């Protein structure tokens, strides 16, 4: 088991390396440098800037320098915000994306899991069909539709919530809801399917015949086991929410990493792009690893060698 963990963690290193190499290569194939966009600078100044940032070194040297610094925790300066390093930028913006993702996940769990459970317990009733219909809607309606609709309804028409930006709890409600409702629907379907399977198991029948109250049967016996697939899905879901919050960040003008990524590519801010890309890739890899480990820990029948 320990071997498996170590192997998986070690495997993450070449993956990150290749991702950094591909991103670095793509960035340098894109025409235009970091200093072309603003007011046209005289050639000598551009040459000076290039020399200062090491941009006139051969590409392989730039890459190995970047790797060496990155291994020491220094992800380079930002070319567009000259006074900040990439570490500063990420520590400023990533918590925002993470908070948004966490809030969305909480909404997804609070809405999705009870809905799925109730649907399973009352299978094929009107309640079941309507819950699953709303779940299907939630999965299908994208953030780009839901966002403007929610903004129009709550912010413009009813005027009870602010339109955009980030900072207060009220500002967080609409974007977290937009982001989370799709996942809530997914969790509802997953919980329902899993619960349906668990309820038919023999040990539930045993518990009932032993006289355990229906409520206890549901919560202490059925739900605990039904939630296993749900729990394993939560890790990647969080990673997906954080890395996918790009769309919601654009709609609600939230200063998170995703929005910054797009502007950084346009400004050819190479270190920032690389930094965000590697951070997101790392999150995804770690989330998948934690999921596999949690699965093996919860279900003793699974053995990894």
């Amino acid at each position: 088991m320990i071997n498996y963990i170590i192997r998986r963690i070690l495997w993450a290193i070449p993956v990150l390396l290749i991702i950094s190499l591909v991103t670095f290569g793509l960035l340098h194939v894109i025409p235009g440098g970091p200093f072309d966009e603003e007011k046209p600078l005289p050639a000598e100044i551009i040459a000076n800037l290039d020399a200062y940032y090491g941009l006139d070194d051969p590409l392989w040297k730039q890459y190995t320098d970047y790797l060496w610094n990155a291994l020491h925790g220094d992800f380079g300066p930002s070319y567009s915000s000259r006074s900040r390093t990439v570490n500063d930028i990420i520590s400023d913006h990533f918590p925002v994306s993470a908070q948004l993702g966490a809030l969305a996940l909480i909404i997804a769990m609070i809405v999705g899991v009870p809905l799925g459970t109730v649907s399973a317990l009352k299978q094929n009733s009107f309640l079941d069909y309507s819950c699953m219909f709303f779940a299907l809607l939630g999965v299908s309606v994208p953030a780009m539709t839901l966002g403007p609709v929610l903004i129009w309804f709550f912010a413009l028409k009813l005027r009870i919530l602010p339109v955009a930006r980030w900072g207060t709890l009220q500002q967080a409600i609409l974007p977290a809801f937009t982001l989370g409702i799709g996942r809530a629907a997914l969790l509802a379907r997953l919980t329902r399917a899993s619960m349906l399977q668990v309820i038919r198991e023999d040990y539930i029948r045993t518990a009932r015949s032993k006289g355990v109250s229906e409520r206890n049967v549901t919560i202490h016996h059925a739900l605990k086991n039904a939630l296993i697939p749900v729990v394993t899905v939560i890790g990647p879901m969080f990673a997906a929410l954080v890395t996918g919050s790009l769309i919601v960040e654009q709609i609600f003008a939230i200063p998170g990493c995703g929005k910054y990524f797009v502007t950084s590519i346009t400004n050819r801010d190479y270190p920032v792009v690389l930094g965000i890309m590697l951070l997101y890739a790392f999150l995804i890899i770690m989330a998948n690893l934690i999921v596999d480990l949690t699965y093996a820990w919860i279900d003793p029948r699974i053995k990894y060698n």
Partner: protein
Amino acid sequence: MELKLKREGKFEDKTVTSERPEVSLWKDAFRRMCKNKMAVLGGIIIIVLLILAIFAPYIAPYHYAEGNLKDNFAQPGSKFLLGADFMGRDLLSRIIYGTRISLSVGIIGAVTAFIIGVFYGVVSGYYGGKVDNIMMRIVDIMYGFPTLLLIILLMVLFKSTFAVTTPGTFAATLGDIDRAFGGLFFIFIGIGITAWIGIARIARGMALSLREKEFIEAARATGNSNLQIILKHVLPNLIGPCIVRVTLAIPGYIIYEAFLSFIGLGVNPPTPSWGMLISEGYKAMHSYPYLAIYPGLALAIAMLSFNFLGDGLRDALDPRMK
């Protein structure tokens, strides 16, 4: 041609024969899907969208680029059924033309993902061993890439590299193709590069398990070559779940394209994409919210119908739910 299967059995000392027609997998699945009202609804909506996309010039009241500035922000009424945008162009017509973009991205994305993914997965799963190892490593690496970020990076790359107009060079020809498509060509490539991975995994898993089954061994024993086995036995068993997975992935492709157009990395204006319509309408949300909401509704309806259809397909092809 319908084969009739004859069954003979004994029932209270009487011999009973019954005949029933042989049903193929697809006929059976189609019959089951027709019973699923949601799937049928999804299918009908998709057909309507297809008709809108193909016959857009005949159905839409105006051309998508024609507009008179003095009509800008006109309210919905008899002249402009859903209102006009900031340049006086009819919103309804633009939404109808936008169907073309979204549907072509969805379908071409699905077809590319299917072809590349199934091919890759089957080769990897069937031949196994080292080949499988290496091919799956590559898939694992691509799986670790944040897809949206990669697509954005690729789109910036394509748009800036191939924007040159010096005639005769390869870059310029690609740029011309792109312009002819209204900016879609590179989106196809971008989505195609990332879309095949999920299908490849499924195809490979199925090929791996099919490889061990006895009928494959029997086929090999009767002298079939590997290629024949793959074509006659492995592929037909794979196709069902792969088609389901691809159909359910189409809304994802549509959303990618819509988002790319939303941030300006998608189709070139004035070609209307729903994402671009939402982005344009968004800027005027405070006074004309319907400009952003109607295209959003179109987007949601398209995604919904593909999800219904995909769900129905999956249930219809699932042998456990007969």
